[in-house]
Every structure is written in structure tokens, then in C-alpha cells.
């Protein structure tokens, strides 16, 4: 009786196999006259983005009946999305036609031959004039060709809790003029409201890229002689701006104005800041992204409707208040066309539909992005959608984008190491900066570095 078990098992394998081959590979077919374009994007817990892509696709298919859009959201962490994109792009049969591409990966993906230049298409696109030069640059490869069209950007600034400020006797609206002003406010809060964390500057390795983008670079690009590269793209070593930025972090942590290592070393550091401590009124000042209110909206896990009254926002000042007085770091995503596409015009046509004024505005409102189209950023409906809209739009002229080269992620890792060494008191700012210089020279090669001031 039992001796039929193996045969049974084998038969089951065959049956499952047959069933599965039947349903696999069905989406690949391509009809004669019509085209199919494949659109991929990262579906990292953002319902707003999913519904935006779905709506845009429906609109596009309606106005282009001969084009079918194969929309592929990719789940998983954003870093896994990069990996999957690279794999898909490496083979013509799986390479997507339209790619939701992080501006930060764009240059190196263009170098890798994954992206198609869009210059010809853009020259014929009337809306291109709505984009400012700095935004256009964010979509350029190192060869000067344009590979991506920005869907919107973000910025970083000082979020502060007005209730705590009132308790500490600091008048609001608050706008510090120098780094020292920021530190002094934190010191005042520490003295007056002892049970809250005065200030958060993301630092250390646990938070990863956040320690660079939200933390260190917000200082370094606003420091005298700061910035990671010179105007020609060579990496700065021996820069005083770098040391001074680390010095700021040193002050925050050595004077215990920031979080203790137990929080900063946790892999859910930013979750604690955004979903627990800010709503609970346990953190006074947070140097953080323009998008953090999405943690408090009606669809969030724990909505916090009162944030609009409690949370104020101020620009991060430059080190000594030197021009342009404020600093910000921006990132953001673009739409790009895959280099292996057989339907470049259809793919670009999708992008131009997705980023027309209405759709770009919808994304800016629903996904809390800072719009990059001039007609959207001045649109009353957009300005009315977000109480901080005008404020963040005002940061964009002075914002900086991270050096989007393939080496940046390694350099950024060294920045995280340096901030951690300073934050934990293992190294002085000068020593940590020296270690960074050595590491960066090792990563990019001595030819690609230059000595800063």
C-alpha cells in the first residue's frame, strides 16, 4: 500500500509542474502592431505611489490604445530594489522600458549602460521648460546627457516642537542664524525641559545613509569650505568644513544634547524618532526630511492630526550665517528609459504623461514631494495642500544634491564611520576626519582627490 508513495509523489510533482508551466510566461506575448512597455518601480510601503502609478497607467493606456503597459511594482527594501533593477537591466529580455530611478543611482546606472539618453525626446517636449537648471542637472549622467526626468524632490530642515519651545521660553517661529544658535537652543531646552531629548542629528552607522543625508551633509554643505567635492567633482580631503561639521556632532553628543548610543545604534532609530518621540513630545528639535509628516497622516499606523499645530519647521542655517544663510540636501526620484528598450518613443510618451502638470501635482500632494515643475510649485491647489509647501520650495534654490557617482555609497559609509567615531567619543573630530581622508583616497584613488581648505 505504502509502496505507491514514491510514485504518487512523482506524479504530484508532474501535476504541479504542468499546472505551473501552464500559467507562467503568459505576460510575455507581444502582439503584431501594438506595443507593450514594461514599467518598474519600487513599492516600498507607499500606497500613494502605487495608486499614482496605477492611475497614470490607466490614463496612458486610454490615450494610447495600441500600447499596453506592464506595470511591475517591486516589493522589498529600497536597497533590494537597486539590486533587482541592476539584474533586470543586465539582460535585454528582462530590461524594463521605463524605470523609476533614484536620482542618486542615475549617474552610475547610466555609466553601466542601463539607461537611454533622453535629449532628443526632451528637445521636443514643451514642458521641459518648466524644470529649472539645477533640477535638470540632477538627471544628467557624467557624459552631460540627460537620462532622467525628476518626479519631484525632497529637502531637509529643522523640525521643532512648539510646545517644548514654549516651555523652554524660546519664541516661535524660530529661525536660527548660525550653528551656534541651533546649539544654544538645544542647550536652553536641556536646562529648562530636562525630560526631553533636546535635539536629533542622525549620526552613526546604524541609521546608514540617513546619517549622511539627514545628518552630516546638512552640516558639511553649509560649512565654510565644506562640501564633499570641488566644482570639478574631485573629492575633498583635509577640509576644515569636514572637521567643523564633525565638531558640531561632537558638541551635540558630548554635551548630551542628542540621543544616547542605545537609540542611535538601533536599527529602528528613525522609526523611534518619527513615530514615537516626536508625536509624544519627547524630542524638541529634529534635523530631518520634508517627508516625515507622512508618518502622522490619516493613513499612518498611528495618526497624529495635531502635528500641524505642534510642529514648526526652520531652515538649517549655514555655519556662521554666511551666504546663502541656509542649507539643505535633496534627493528624489526620476523617471528614466531603459537602454535596451525597443520602444523609446512609447516609453518617453509614458514619462511625459506621468509628469504632465496634473499628474506631477497629484504626486507632489499625495506623496509629500516638493514639486520641481515651476507651474506646480506655484499652483494654489498645491500650496494649499501642505502648510509647509512654500517653506520647502524656498529651500530648493540653495539645496545640494549628493555626488551621484558610483563611489558615493562607499564614501558615505566612511562618513557614517566618522560620525560614529565622533559621536561615541572614540575619535576626536580631527582624527576622524583624517581617517576619512585616508579611506576616501583609497576608494576613489589619489588622482580623484584634491586638498581642501
Amino acid at each position, binding site marked *: 500500500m505504502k509502496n505507491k508513495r514514491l510514485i504518487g509523489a512523482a506524479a504530484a510533482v508532474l501535476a*504541479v509542474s504542468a499546472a505551473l508551466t501552464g500559467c507562467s510566461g503568459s505576460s510575455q506575448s507581444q502582439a503584431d502592431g501594438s506595443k507593450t512597455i514594461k514599467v518598474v518601480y519600487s513599492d516600498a510601503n507607499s500606497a500613494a505611489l502605487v495608486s499614482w502609478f496605477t492611475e497614470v497607467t490607466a490614463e496612458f493606456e486610454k490615450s494610447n490604445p495600441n500600447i499596453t503597459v506592464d506595470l511591475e511594482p517591486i516589493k522589498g527594501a529600497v536597497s533590494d530594489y537597486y539590486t533587482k533593477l541592476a539584474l*533586470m537591466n543586465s539582460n535585454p529580455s*528582462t530590461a524594463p522600458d521605463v524605470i523609476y530611478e533614484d536620482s542618486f543611482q542615475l549617474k552610475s546606472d547610466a555609466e553601466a549602460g542601463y539607461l537611454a539618453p533622453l535629449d532628443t525626446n526632451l528637445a521636443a517636449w514643451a514642458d521641459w521648460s518648466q524644470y529649472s537648471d539645477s533640477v535638470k542637472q540632477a538627471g544628467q549622467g557624467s557624459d552631460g546627457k540627460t537620462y532622467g526626468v525628476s518626479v519631484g524632490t525632497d529637502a531637509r530642515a529643522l523640525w521643532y516642537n512648539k510646545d517644548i519651545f514654549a516651555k523652554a521660553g524660546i519664541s516661535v517661529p524660530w529661525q536660527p542664524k548660525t550653528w551656534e544658535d541651533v546649539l544654544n537652543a538645544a542647550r536652553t531646552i536641556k536646562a529648562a525641559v530636562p525630560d526631553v531629548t533636546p535635539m536629533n542629528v542622525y549620526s552613526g552607522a546604524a541609521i546608514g545613509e540617513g546619517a549622511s543625508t539627514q545628518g552630516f551633509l546638512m552640516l558639511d554643505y553649509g560649512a565654510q569650505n565644506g562640501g564633499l567635492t570641488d566644482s570639478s567633482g574631485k573629492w575633498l580631503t583635509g577640509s576644515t568644513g569636514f572637521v567643523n561639521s564633525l565638531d558640531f556632532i561632537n558638541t551635540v553628543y558630548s554635551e548630551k544634547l542628542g540621543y544616547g548610543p542605545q537609540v542611535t545604534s538601533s536599527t529602528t532609530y528613525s522609526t523611534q524618532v518619527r513615530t*514615537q518621540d516626536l508625536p509624544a513630545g519627547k524630542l524638541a528639535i529634529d534635523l530631518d526630511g520634508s517627508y516625515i509628516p507622512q*508618518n502622522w497622516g490619516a493613513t*499612518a499606523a498611528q495618526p497624529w492630526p495635531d502635528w500641524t499645530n505642534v510642529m514648526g519647521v526652520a531652515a538649517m542655517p549655514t555655519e556662521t550665517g554666511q551666504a546663502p544663510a541656509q542649507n539643505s540636501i535633496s534627493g528624489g526620484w526620476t523617471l528614466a528609459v531603459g537602454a535596451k528598450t525597443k520602444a523609446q518613443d512609447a516609453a518617453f510618451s509614458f514619462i511625459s504623461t506621468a509628469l504632465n502638470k496634473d499628474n506631477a501635482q497629484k504626486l507632489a500632494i499625495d506623496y509629500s514631494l516638493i514639486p520641481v515643475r515651476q507651474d506646480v510649485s506655484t499652483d494654489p491647489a498645491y500650496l494649499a495642500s501642505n502648510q509647509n509647501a512654500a517653506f520647502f520650495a524656498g529651500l530648493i534654490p540653495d539645496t545640494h544634491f549628493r555626488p551621484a557617482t558610483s563611489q558615493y555609497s562607499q564614501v558615505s559609509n566612511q562618513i557614517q564611520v566618522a560620525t560614529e567615531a565622533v559621536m561615541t567619543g572614540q575619535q576626536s573630530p580631527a582624527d576622524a576626519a583624517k581617517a576619512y581622508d585616508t579611506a576616501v583616497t583609497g576608494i576613489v584613488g589619489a588622482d580623484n582627490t584634491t586638498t581642501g581648505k
Partner: protein
Amino acid sequence: MSLSSPSGRGVRLTSNAVLLLIALTFIAPLVWLVLASLNSTASLSAELPGTPTLDNFAQVLTPALSFVPLWNSFLISAGSALITVVVAILAAYPLSRFKTRFNKPFLYGVLFATGLPITAMMVPVYSLFVRIGLVDSLLGTIFFMATSSLPIAIWMTKNFVDGVPTSLEEAAWMDGASSMRTLRSVVVPLMRPGIAVVFIYVFIHSWGNFFVPFVLLLSPEKQPASVSIYTFFGENGAIAYGQLAAYSLVYSIPVLVLYVIISRGVGGSSALAGAVKG
């Protein structure tokens, strides 16, 4: 197997006490999962929810979030476990019963392959799948998952086959039965617990594997639960702990149930032990 000596009762009591203590230790980390899943404002602490609610479950139990991914997980895991078990039994039998010069290097090779970091080789695997047209195919993914568990499965199965005494096969051999027939009618029934262990082992591994299906499957509707669970890890640090816990339970319970069913089926009366007493 009861101990009837005077000290037996004492031994049993101590054993039970120690066992229960260990059981508590093992259950403790799971308490949070259960409590958080019933709490609409869950945090990382295990606290009793003020008003227990099933809201978290209501939110995750949708076709797109739960049912389709779980069904895919089932297809992938059951498919690869089945293939692995069948192929491993076929391979293990000759390896156990017939001595050839080929056995030793093969077994050491297989053993060594159990330690392969599969993640590190997914890039060439992807190119391979593209070349043979298996990307985005559930069946291809199943075969790859089966193969990646095959080394450890062959190793384990061979040990189980070794444990089946050959005396029982001799009768069948004498009757002139082929080795395959002997395998089917004598060996396999005797090593059912072993087969169950291998099946569960492969099933669980496939059920929890994120990277392989993530890389090899493109269509979102083919992705298993191990991939869709990432919906609950926020992009900008927002983690809905309650929903994450609820989804974790929804995602884990099928494997727990499977384990209970299979271990009930083979565990109680141990075919292996019975055969030894003969």
C-alpha cells in the same frame, strides 16, 4: 519506554521541570508577536492592548497582501519540498547501499555545498535563468529552490537510509525484486519520520526564503509572502508594528499547522524504532 526503577519518578519530575522551563524560554519571544497583533497602537514592548482588536488582521487579510502571496508561498514550498524529497531519496539509496569509489567524493561535495551562501551566487543564477528562459517562472524558481536544498537533503536522507537495517531488504532481494522496488516497498515506509523531517526542513526554508523568489520572479502576482511582508517595513522608517505582527502570524501559522499535521502522521508510532526491535 517508561522507567520503572525507584529513582524513575524523581528523574521524570526533574526532567519535566527542566523541560517546561526551556519551553517557557522558547515561547517568551513569541509573546510580543501575539500581543502586538491585537494592539492597534503596538510598540516594541510586550504590553497588553488596552482594548484587544482584530483591526490589524482585518487590514492585512486581503487578497493582494495575504491570500495570493500565501498561495504562491505554498506552491513554491510544497513544490520544492516534494521535488527535493523524491530526488534526495533516489540519490541517497544507492549512496547508502552500494559502495563505489564515487560515493565519498560525491558525499563530501554535497556536504560542502550545504554551506553555500546562496545569496552570493544569485547574480550568475539570474543570468542563467534569463538564458534558459526561466525568469519569472514559478516552476523555475521551484526547481532552483529544490536544488539549493538538495545537498543537505541528500545528506540527511542518506543518514536515514543508513539507519534502516538491510536485513529487512534481504527478503525482497531474495525474491528478485529490483533495488528500486525494494526502495519503494521496504525502505521508504521504514524511514517515514526521516522523510518527514527532510520535507518539513525544505518546506520551511523555501517558505521563509526572501532573496531567491525576489530575484527570480518578476511579476508581483507571483511573489510569495516572504516578499510581500516587506510591505510592512516602511520606506522612511515607519513601521506599523501591529500590522507587521499580525501579518507575521498569518504568514507563520500555515507552516506551524503543516508541522503539526506531518509530525502527528509520523511521530506517534515511530516506524524506525519498531523496525529495529523487529
